[in-house]
């Protein structure tokens, strides 16, 4: 097999050009490894060769991002490597941002696999952890050997197209993507161990950090609800009997759009639920218990609402990925806007 061709990106400091006073130097190409590239090369052994090193001053990069990136990408492109390694940047903020930017651009624009490394609190980590593999390093160059020992195996796997394990196994910063792994101890034992640490006020590491949920500002109130066109939407899985769209009972991959024009009520035997997360017998007897078409129709006739929109959208919100349901709504909301729907009632089970 041919050797993996590697280009290494480092800053002026690691290239031993100088410290802060030399941070203004523009991008420069040097053949072969420079500075930490020697340790990287040694770790790769016979399998890979560092064909060249791109060096750029941290100030220059961050003050002239576009120009610097263009120049750097052109240097990389000319040498057609299989892999780009950036840094590791440890806790150097501007260097971290540069490493993340270069690594992401190399993989997105040139299709070159890329790995970088930095300390978890490096601002570059927050900015790029979702986009590129960032090996978690110590906060100073004293952690170089550690960093290299984890960057190299991950980089090799990436280039060879092998399966990448979970962050805890490979040593990269979590990417917001959950990856399964088999632990050495069963879950109950891990829970007991964690509790003992917590009781002793020792540090422990949760396996699932709580997420931050994003928020949307409320829309202004509907001014004249008695004239508004109102749509019904549900995650309760109400579908025409027989589930014509084959919406899955759990982790749905699609939603249905059903015409309720003129329907007075969702009759038993004509409508049912596809939801696998609750006892379906009540909804199957009377689907209005989940999707209140009967009452909405009454209110429409009494003039309490302008009209009931003639389509309803339905999916199964049972173990369904938040991303999927978000995509469903982004899709059908276009029609709601086009059709001038002014308010939505969404029911969930």
């Amino acid at each position, binding site marked *: 097999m041919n050797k993996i061709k590697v280009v290494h990106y480092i800053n002026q400091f690691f290239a031993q050009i100088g410290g802060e006073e030399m941070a203004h130097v523009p991008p420069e190409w040097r053949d072969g490894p420079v500075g930490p590239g020697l340790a990287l090369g040694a770790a790769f052994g016979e399998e890979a060769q560092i064909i060249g090193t791109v060096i750029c001053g941290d100030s220059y990069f961050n003050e002239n991002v576009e120009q610097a990136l263009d120049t750097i990408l052109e240097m990389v492109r000319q040498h057609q490597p299989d892999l780009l390694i950036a840094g590791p940047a440890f806790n150097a903020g501007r260097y971290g941002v540069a490493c993340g930017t270069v690594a992401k651009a190399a993989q997105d624009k040139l299709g070159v696999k890329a790995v970088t490394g930095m300390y978890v609190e490096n601002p570059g980590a927050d900015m790029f952890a979702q986009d590129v593999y960032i090996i978690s390093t110590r906060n100073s160059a004293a952690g170089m050997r550690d960093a290299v020992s984890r960057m190299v195996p991950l980089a090799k796997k990436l280039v060879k197209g092998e399966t990448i394990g979970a962050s805890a196994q490979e040593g990269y910063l979590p990417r917001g993507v959950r990856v399964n792994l088999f632990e050495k101890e069963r879950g109950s034992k891990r829970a007991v161990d964690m509790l003992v640490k917590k009781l002793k006020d020792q540090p422990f590491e949760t396996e699932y950090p709580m997420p931050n949920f994003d928020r949307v500002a409320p829309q202004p109130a509907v001014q004249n609800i008695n004239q*508004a066109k109102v749509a019904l939407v549900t995650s309760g899985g109400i579908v025409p009997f027989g589930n014509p769209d084959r919406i899955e009972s759990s982790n749905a991959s699609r939603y249905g759009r059903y015409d309720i024009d003129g329907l007075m009520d969702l009759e038993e035997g004509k409508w049912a639920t596809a939801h696998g997360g609750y006892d379906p017998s*009540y909804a199957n007897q*009377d689907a209005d*218990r989940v999707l209140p078409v009967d009452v909405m129709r009454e209110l429409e006739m009494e003039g309490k609402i302008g009209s009931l929109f003639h389509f309803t959208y339905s999916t199964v919100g049972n173990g369904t990925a938040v991303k999927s349901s978000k995509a469903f709504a982004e899709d059908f*909301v276009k029609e709601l806007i086009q059709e001038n729907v002014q308010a939505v009632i969404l029911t969930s089970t």
Partner: protein
Amino acid sequence: MVKEIERAGIPVVHICTVTPISLTVGANRIVPAVAIPHPLGNPKLSRGEEKTLRRKIVQTALKALSTEVSDQTIFEVD
């Protein structure tokens, strides 16, 4: 879904049983429902009583849509 509808510019009210989840996922107008398998119904009631109950919940939802809110708000059914 509720957030995407609101984000797109249409006011939305979320009728659901487990209001804590609705609060966590970020609905702004929330109306509590009856129970998970029958959010807008109650099989223990007669058909007529059940429909009255459903109508009350839906009307509370319409009231919620007609009410200005600055933060996540739960509209209890009277």
